[in-house]
């Protein structure tokens, strides 16, 4: 692969970022004085059962036996939608890092004063949109360890899910199911552009109401198996084990990830 200058990559990245710009949401509703608060909890399961790490006990739809060793990811731009089309955007912190091995990251007190009322859904961005995915914006652990290399688009991994899978009897391979900014390549293998792979997630059955001074605790659950089963049947033999430089594989992963999240409970 030949080198492109950082500057040219940067401008190409900007070009793609501008192409991906979404239709803006309507203006948020004015914030009333009566507010509550929200705490998000994060959990990880496989088809409804709590994830058991480091154990080759799962089989995906393609028939690959696999185990999960690490799960780390960002969600950002959480929005609480009202039925009338208005919304409240979580703004105190617009990005949150989740690491299954770091208990403190599994609880996110968003810190916002949430206007009382009824909300009919919650959406968020999985990963960080390219416009906000700025290299070096995190300088401290653990977020800094999610850095996505500059030559590959920079910013941070959206997802780092590491594990092992059984390629054949007595053959265990590692896999790095990593998603971030994608690349497009010319026929010679030169990077000629970048792709914003961050995607919107609408949590099903996420309606809730909140009253003044009330704290809502909302659990968001990631089903690991969802990354591997639909709409793309993920086969490590086909999509690959290491996908940071395979935009087609990352695109498939993103399609699968759209329904990987659900509400565990709202208390």
């Amino acid at each position, binding site marked *: *692969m030949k*080198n492109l200058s950082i500057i040219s990559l940067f401008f190409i990245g900007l070009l793609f970022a501008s192409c991906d710009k979404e239709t803006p949401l309507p203006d948020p509703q004015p914030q009333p004085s009566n507010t509550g608060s929200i705490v998000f909890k994060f959990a990880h399961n496989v088809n409804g059962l709590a994830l058991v790490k*480091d154990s080759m006990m799962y089989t995906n739809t393609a028939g690959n036996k696999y185990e999960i*060793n*690490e799960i780390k990811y960002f969600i950002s731009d959480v929005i609480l939608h009202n039925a009338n089309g208005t919304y409240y955007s979580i703004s105190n912190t617009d990005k949150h890092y989740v690491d299954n091995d770091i208990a403190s990251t599994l609880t996110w007190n968003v810190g916002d004063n949430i206007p009382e009322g009824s909300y009919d859904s919650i959406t968020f961005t999985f990963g960080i949109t390219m416009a906000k995915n700025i290299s*070096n914006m995190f*300088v*401290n*652990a653990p977020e*800094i*360890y999610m*850095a996505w*290399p*500059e*030559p*590959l688009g920079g910013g941070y991994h959206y997802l780092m899910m*590491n*594990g*092992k899978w059984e*390629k054949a009897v007595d*053959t*265990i*391979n*590692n*896999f*790095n199911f990593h998603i971030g900014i994608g690349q497009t390549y010319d026929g010679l293998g030169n990077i000629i552009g970048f792709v914003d792979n961050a995607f919107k997630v609408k949590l099903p059955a996420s309606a809730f109401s909140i009253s003044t001074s009330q704290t809502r605790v909302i659990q968001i659950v990631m089903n690991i198996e969802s990354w591997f089963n639909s709409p793309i049947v993920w086969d490590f033999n086909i999509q690959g*084990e*290491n996908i*940071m*430089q395979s935009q087609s594989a990352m695109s498939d992963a993103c399609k699968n990830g759209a329904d990987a999240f659900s509400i565990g409970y709202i208390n």
Partner: protein
Amino acid sequence: MKLFKYSFLSLVLCLAIVSCKKDEPIPTTTVTNDGPTPYVIQIPKFFPTILNIPADNPMTVEGIELGRYLFYDGRLTGKVDTLMSCATCHHIDKSFENGIGYGYGVTGIQTPHVMLPMINLVFNSSGYFWNGKISASNPNEHNRTLEDVVYLGLTAPHELHSDSVSCKNAIQNIPMYPPMFKKAFGSDVVTFKNIAKAIAQFVRTLISADSKFDRYLRGEAQLNASELKGYMIFNTEKGDCFHCHGTVLFTTNQFYNNATDSVFNDPRDRFAITGDPKDHGAYKATTLRNIELTGPYMRDGRFATLDQVINHYSEGLVWSPYVHPLMKKINDGGIQLTPTEKADLKAFLHTLMDSTFITNPAFKNPF
């Protein structure tokens, strides 16, 4: 680390040097009525802003200065048969490593692992030593901080093998020191705790951020074609070095089984700390800054050269159930670099050499 044998000659030499040092001028420091002068670490661009400085040992100009003298002072152990100091093994021109592998303490006992370079430790909150034993999460309150590392260095049989009484008495009786302790800690009574605090303060100032690659990032230098190709290998899946050696620190300070072995019987690996089976054979990913100075490599110094290290990752990986999943090419034996690619990667690693660091007057022997 060199072995200092018992001998009459060394005793005489020791006494002679101690005697000679009595008349050395006491370094000048700024003292105010309010106590020592606070020292603010200048954080290089993009470096972590969370600093590993315990609340009970704030950085001060006087504390750092005292720490530097103690670091280099061969009288620190208080033993008449040795002039071993921290600097006996931690050489500035080797990035405060020894450059030869295992160290040997005063009594000739070998260190359990080869040395780690002392670079940018103030930015490391993930634990010191190859297995991260010294960390804030250690249930033993004496195994949590850089000050504790200093304590262990002064007392461990495979290092200075001294004791608190000998150390503090020796320093107390050297005329230049009580006034320095007074300036740094408000009392001219030397304590072992304050000795450790002062040395830890000095070590926290050892920041490397001026390699050729740093200057490249700042627009002050250009990498040549081979170095740029190596940079690309380092930062793409071709070499995939960045997952463990990324960020401006060139380490995550995390622990990985990097496929060097298939049998694990080291009682000081990461598993010894966590008890997690997947940590068998896992060790800290060391910083690659000044890596050309800090061989031999790996925790047991098995690789004498950077070429051997690169060969290991290219075609020498050893499978075991504990290999970290980031070692993605384990079943191919490695990342399979060509000779040219190896040369390019090595060229890039050489750009991490920080000559400013190893020649910084503030880090040098003050005697």
